């Protein structure tokens, strides 16, 4: 369980917010918190291992509704211990 | 040492007596007794606890002593500039009265209670630990500004001045209390940096409202969190 739990701010392609939200919610290890008054999402990822983390990054990059992604914070069990 | 032995003896004798009488301890009523005592020690100060009251008798006075016109306030950047790192002992920025003396007679003459010094155009900072009178075992007087070798040391960042958890709530103490438990020394009176000067030095039991917040802790959780 050494892969960190991370949070991102996600800017959708304008007009595609709810589409992106749905797509992210479908993906394993993702939790989404949409802003109520802006076209903006927060994403929290929790993956079991390196491979899953890589796969998830690949999936995120392939999303056409995602305009831009910025990492905010990460915590791993090892760091917190 | 002798006293410890006497207590130990008394405890042992007492235990032996209980053993001989052969009470079944823990079941039902039984004879109980207090061991005969030698005198307890006079309570000694607990350093992290005692300082908070150290200057409490000055509190009401400090409330009314404010920098006047032409008396510049100190600010945090200047406060930290005297120290190699936050919490480090500040250097002495002025000439010494006497290079040989202990602090009790020289340094404390000014740094015990503080006050305005026209020559320096500054208020004297007050020491948080006047009981330690060998001042210059920690506080040095920089004789020149040069270096033998440049240093790559980088100081830790100073804690931010905390805000309360809610508007009006008392902020936590963002530093450890060792050597710095005498709150009013640094937070009360005109020499206190303006950013951290208390508005209410007359309320002397500071820690009834301001609690430790120096070490971040995970939030409480019933499943083993907060441990």
């Amino acid at each position, binding site marked *: 369980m050494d892969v960190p739990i991370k949070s991102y701010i996600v800017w959708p392609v304008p007009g595609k917010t709810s589409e992106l939200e749905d797509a992210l919610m479908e993906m394993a290890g993702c*939790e989404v*918190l949409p802003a109520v008054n802006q076209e903006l999402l927060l994403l929290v990822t929790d993956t079991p291992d390196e491979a899953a983390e890589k796969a998830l990054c690949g999936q995120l990059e392939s999303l056409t509704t995602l305009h831009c992604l910025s990492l905010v914070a990460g915590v791993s069990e090892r760091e917190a211990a | 040492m002798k006293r410890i032995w006497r207590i130990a003896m008394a405890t042992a004798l007492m235990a032996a007596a209980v053993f001989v009488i052969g009470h079944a301890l823990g079941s039902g009523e039984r004879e109980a*007794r207090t061991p005969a005592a030698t005198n307890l020690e006079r*309570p000694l100060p607990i350093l992290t606890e005692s300082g*908070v009251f150290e200057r409490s008798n000055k509190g*009401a006075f400090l409330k009314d002593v404010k920098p006047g016109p032409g008396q510049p306030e100190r600010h945090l950047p200047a406060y930290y500039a005297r120290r190699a790192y936050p919490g480090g002992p500040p250097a002495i920025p002025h000439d010494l009265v006497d290079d040989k003396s202990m602090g009790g007679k020289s340094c404390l003459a000014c740094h015990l209670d503080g006050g305005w010094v026209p020559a320096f155009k500054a208020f004297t900072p007050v020491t948080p630990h006047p009981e330690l009178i060998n001042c210059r075992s920690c506080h040095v007087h920089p004789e020149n500004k040069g270096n033998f070798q440049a240093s790559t040391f980088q100081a830790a960042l100073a804690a931010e001045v905390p805000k309360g*958890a809610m508007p009006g709530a008392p902020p936590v103490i963002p530093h450890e209390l060792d050597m710095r438990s005498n709150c009013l020394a640094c937070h009360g009176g005109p020499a206190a940096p303006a950013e951290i000067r208390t508005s209410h030095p007359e309320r002397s039991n500071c820690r*009834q409202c301001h609690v430790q917040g120096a070490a971040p802790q995970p939030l409480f959780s019933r499943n083993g969190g*907060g*441990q």
Partner: protein
Amino acid sequence: MNRRDLFKQMVAAAAVTAAGELVPGVSFGATPKVDSINGLTWKKAPCRFCGTGCGLLIGISNNRAVAVKGDPASSVNKGLCCVKGYHSVMALYGADRLTKALVRKNGTLVPVPINEALDLVASKLKENIAQHGKDSVAIYGSGQWTIPDGYCASKLFKGAIGTNNVEGNARLCMASAVTGFMTTFGLDEPMGCYEDIDNADVFVLWGNNMAEMHPVLFSRMLERRQQATGTLIVDLATRTTRTSMAADRSILFLPQTDLAIANAIAHELIRNNWLHSTFLQRHVSFHTGKTNIGYGTQDKFAFTDEPKTIDFAAYKKALEEYTPEKVEKLSGVPAREIRFLASLYGDPKKRVVSFWCMGMNQHTRGTWIQNLVYNIHLLTGKISTPGNSPFSLTGQPSACGTVREVGTLTNRLPHGEVTDPHAREMAAKIWGVPVSNIAPKPTLHTVEMFRALDRGDLKMIWIQVTNPMVTMPKTTRYRDGLKKDGRFVVVSDVYPTPTTDVADVVLPSAMWIEREGMFGNSERRTQHWEKMVDPPGEAMSDTWQLIEVARRMGHGKLFPYKPETHIKEIWEEYRQFHHGAAHEMASYDELRSRPGIMWPYVKGKETKWRYNPKYDPAAKPGDTHHFYGKPDQKAWIWFRPYEPAAESPDKEYPFWLNTGRVVEHWHTGSLTRRIPVLHQAMPAAYVELHPNDAKKFNVKNGDRVRLTSRRGTIVLPALIDRRGRPPEGQVFVPFFDEHKLINELTLDAFCPISKQPDYKKCAVRVEKAV
């Protein structure tokens, strides 16, 4: 919540903050919109925590409590709070707040609609009463019950059901104070008020770490010392604390020897003739009672005192063996310190306040030590005048208002003892029940109540606003008892706790400012607050839970109150019990409009000093004092000897264990640990050792130490010379931490008169844990 969930919350919170900085004004819905500090509505409430009863102003915005300030109009705290008060509203918003009723099905608690849970509670009560009799069910509340909560509990159980199985955790907290007042004065609660602090020359703190436990009153005392030079604070304690640091004189004594010290002070007062002889002649009579009275450690222990009246000569003779020199040997206090204390009490020019709280209450001779401290004040006539005050402090916001005044103890009714036919008649009349409904004998006091559950004599208990699975001494026995088959446990609370863990039904409660209520503080001050915010989910006030269950049991006509006005209706009904000069209470409308009113409240005037005709309308004029509580119209001086603790250190268990609180946490921490500021300042329990003992065990700060008593064992991190320092041969552990249950080690011995357990003294073994 597990660790990973916690981390998720942390990183999500960081992202919310970061987004807020990048896109000002962005909202994620989860955080409700609140006004800035200048746009709030401020409403008054007494603090939710200790018995000081500080007045708070709560800042309300958008149906949420968002800020706190001290109420400058409150004479208790004059605008100041302690750290718990300032952060008190955050206790409403812990993420694991109980919002739904839970019922145990196939071993696990599952959410159900609250009506279904209330139906189940009512039917289980009826079923048990039908099968096993009315004394098979009980209610156990606390000094955090509002006055209407306690009143409805008493009316339902004592009036409607007809059992005296009504107790409050104040039995663990204030019972010795009550029996102390009753045996000495015949009436409960302090004669003085907090204004005594502003008038005293000397403060003697008897086993009372006031700097941490009653910080606002402590600060008022420090303020007095600043203003009146020569004011002296003496800390008389078993452990060095923050209070000792502020005191002018700190005197340590060995556990339990306060009894001998108090007698030695009386001995010295008499030897030096430092007595107020006219006061003694007119207002005092002398008495003694049984000795070797036991410790109550066995089930069904019973005790009745046999008071005998004696004269001054007999009292003086009984004190002969308490010379300062002899007491020095027992207590570890040098004879000169005892003489010093006597000289303070004995100086006719000095006004003296004695303060105490759990040190004297949680004591196997708790009633006796209260008597003995009153003796000192009575011998010198230092009582019931401004600045002369033996003052018993309380630990809960309404230990006085609810448990003592409403009488939610097995032996009490709202006015008087259950054994008193007049008290029963009055209750029957006001409640509208036949007098035969009200049982004339006390049944189970708290410790015996939990023993009866373990034995199976008691089948069902409803626990409100308290957490006995952290606070009961010898917890393991009582937890195992509650878990046995055939026991039905209902718990009303606001958060999951070790007590809800063993419940069959959990009812979500509305707390404090989520409902209307009143508390009564240590100085006889009743304080009202209105409902300010909505409770979460289906949470319901304890008062309304009791009314709902009463109606389901068929007692609806005794509880005819309307939802919008029930608190007013209940208050005006309850107030009838206290009509008369000795105990008159203010009306609902007056309470609503003012930040607290002290009773007796007669003709619009509060009574600051009882038994003093200058201030007290119930006292006969013409003399300096009138002690109208006892039949002989006198205050009683009791001779009470020193008797040892129930369990003292021996070879196998060579250390004294003392337990208590810290400034950050209140009681079992179920509220304060959910306030991040407080939890982070004091995240876990610890064990304090004397530095010499630490050296002996090769233990450094933070090292793990194992404590073992005859009842249990626990591992705690060591804390050496930080918050407090016990003497050699003693250790101290705070009890707020549900993950480190120190009460699994404590002993369930109690004062035979008050039935209050002693949490301050038992024997443990200390080892370095590996």
